[in-house]
């Protein structure tokens, strides 16, 4: 065991990379990412085109490895390209959610008083609205497109981050380093962004990772219900459009579902690893 002091981020990486599950998650995510970035180009079959007879079973036709769905569309083509929309929407929606959550939580925790009271009430309101139903209403009223779906998921997924950010800001605002910066004449914005936020980052990063996983599941759910853009192939859409025929072609729903599962599993393994790496209290265990 070396006693040499590492920078906090190097130390975090050391802990993270010694966590086998987290490294496995990172590898899984790399494979999924490579599949959807390079897969469709290499395979060259459109996921919307009729590629063969409907209900072709997998591993029976050498040209159609994973078989075809109820319309005769190539399942493998869909599996390869279907992650692009899902992951893109998941990442963007998580970015929206984290931005809203950190902003609201930071303002509430930093200013306290009536600002905190008002913002906490707003957070509570969004917490009691069942997220999927609320997103369903938004998507229906504003017509389904990827942008609306991103916005809808972002607007319902931020409350957890807001509570966390509020707690962190509340805790850090009156610590000595913040008071020192205040005494040196730092303004509110500078204090929040340059002094407190960097110290609040570790738990927020972990929470952001978890939101990415949740947002991916969310996008898949909305597409499954047929409430995402119908012109963009995604794993959820594949499962949803074959829903009435699952007993005739289990493969058309099983493979895309397995991809969603693998992606979310990878992200949560990484989240767990980050939690261990960035939460210094756990190092001692």
């Amino acid at each position, binding site marked *: 065991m070396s006693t040499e002091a590492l920078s906090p981020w190097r130390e975090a990486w050391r802990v993270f990379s010694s966590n086998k599950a987290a490294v496995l998650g990172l590898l899984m995510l790399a494979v999924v990412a490579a599949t959807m970035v390079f897969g469709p180009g290499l395979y060259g079959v459109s996921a919307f085109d009729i590629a063969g007879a409907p209900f072709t079973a997998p591993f029976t036709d050498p040209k159609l490895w994973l078989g075809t769905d109820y319309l005769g569309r190539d399942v493998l083509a869909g599996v390869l390209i279907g992650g692009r929309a899902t992951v893109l929407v998941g990442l963007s929606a998580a970015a929206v959610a984290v931005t809203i959550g950190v902003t609201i939580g930071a303002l509430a925790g930093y200013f306290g008083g009536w600002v905190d009271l008002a913002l906490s009430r707003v957070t509570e309101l969004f*917490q009691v*609205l069942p*997220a999927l139903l609320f997103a369903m209403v938004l998507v229906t009223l504003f017509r389904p497109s990827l942008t609306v779906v991103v916005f809808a998921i972002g607007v319902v997924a931020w409350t957890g981050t807001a509570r966390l950010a509020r707690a962190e800001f509340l805790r850090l605002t009156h610590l000595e380093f913040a008071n020192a910066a205040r005494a040196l004449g730092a303004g509110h914005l500078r204090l929040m962004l340059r002094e407190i936020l960097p110290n609040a980052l570790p738990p927020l990063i972990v929470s952001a990772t978890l939101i990415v996983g949740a947002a991916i599941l969310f996008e898949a759910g909305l597409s499954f219900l047929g409430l995402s853009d119908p012109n963009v192939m995604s794993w959820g859409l594949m499962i949803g459009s074959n829903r009435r025929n*699952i007993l005739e072609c289990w493969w058309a729903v099983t493979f895309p*579902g397995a991809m969603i599962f*693998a992606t979310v599993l990878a992200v949560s393994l990484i989240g767990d690893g980050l939690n261990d790496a960035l939460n210094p209290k756990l190092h001692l265990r």
Partner: protein
Amino acid sequence: MQRTLVTVLRRLALAVGLVLAVLAVNFTLIHAAPGDPALVIAGEMGGADEATMATIRKTYGLDRPLHEQFFTYLGKSVRGDLGTSYTYNRPVIDLILGRLGPTVLLVLTALLCAIVIGTGLGVLASRRPDSFGSGVVTVFSLVGYAMPVFWTGILLVILFGKVWPVMPIAGMRDVRAFGAGPWQAALDVAHHLVLPAATLAIVYLAQYSRLSRASMLEVLGSDYIRTARAKGLSDAVVTFKHALRNALMPIVTIAGLQFGNLISGAVLVETVFSWPGLGTLALDAILGRDYPTLLGVLTFSAILVIVANLITDLSYRWIDPRLRGR
């Protein structure tokens, strides 16, 4: 006692405020949606007809100033008038009350299973944190969380619809069971409930087992547990009477917080199993552009969450006697 009463009343007032806020959100949504709110309300009724539009504007008071409209809407909603569904041509409130039961049944069954089994697994795992069984619980909780709930449901439908047909895979009642006695009917519903409830429970089971494992590990390391053991109390008494009660706090907190997610999950599960609840009603409403019904479902499910949070708040007092005086 009096303090408890004051707290309960305060919580109730907050809950009512939240319901009003949800109604305000609904109102804002209708008016923020692109296009004429009369068109939004008219939906599939055929809003192009000028005479119809004028009638709608008049009945809904859309020709009045916005703030006046808001208070009219609020007043009507509070009295239980959520408008009329055009697809079913019935008051929205009747439709919702008819579907509320199945959803509540599904959600509560799933939640109960998840909490009881999940906590049980977590407690077992916490007794020997480095054992093989504990590892299985950890893996199970990761897998359960990452499975999309509708996919789990579909896999179960394939399993019990194709491979091993011992469970009904759709609906809530069997036509053949209509007209049978109440016991028969209850048994029939219970039989239909197994798969949807199991699907919904798996996700939360995973989370509760993980949470209760962590929570138990923390509690089992504390001094009063060592004291209890030193007193010579049996392992079972220490685990269940001393440790579990304190470890329950975070579980109850999360259960309350997650009730909204549970309802979101129920929407997907109901769709997979054609369960006649609020979720399938909402989806039908979307397909029929039936906005009053859709917003009614949103309002009612928010009320369910608010009630669940209220119950959570009050159950803290039962679990933790220190809170009773406050």
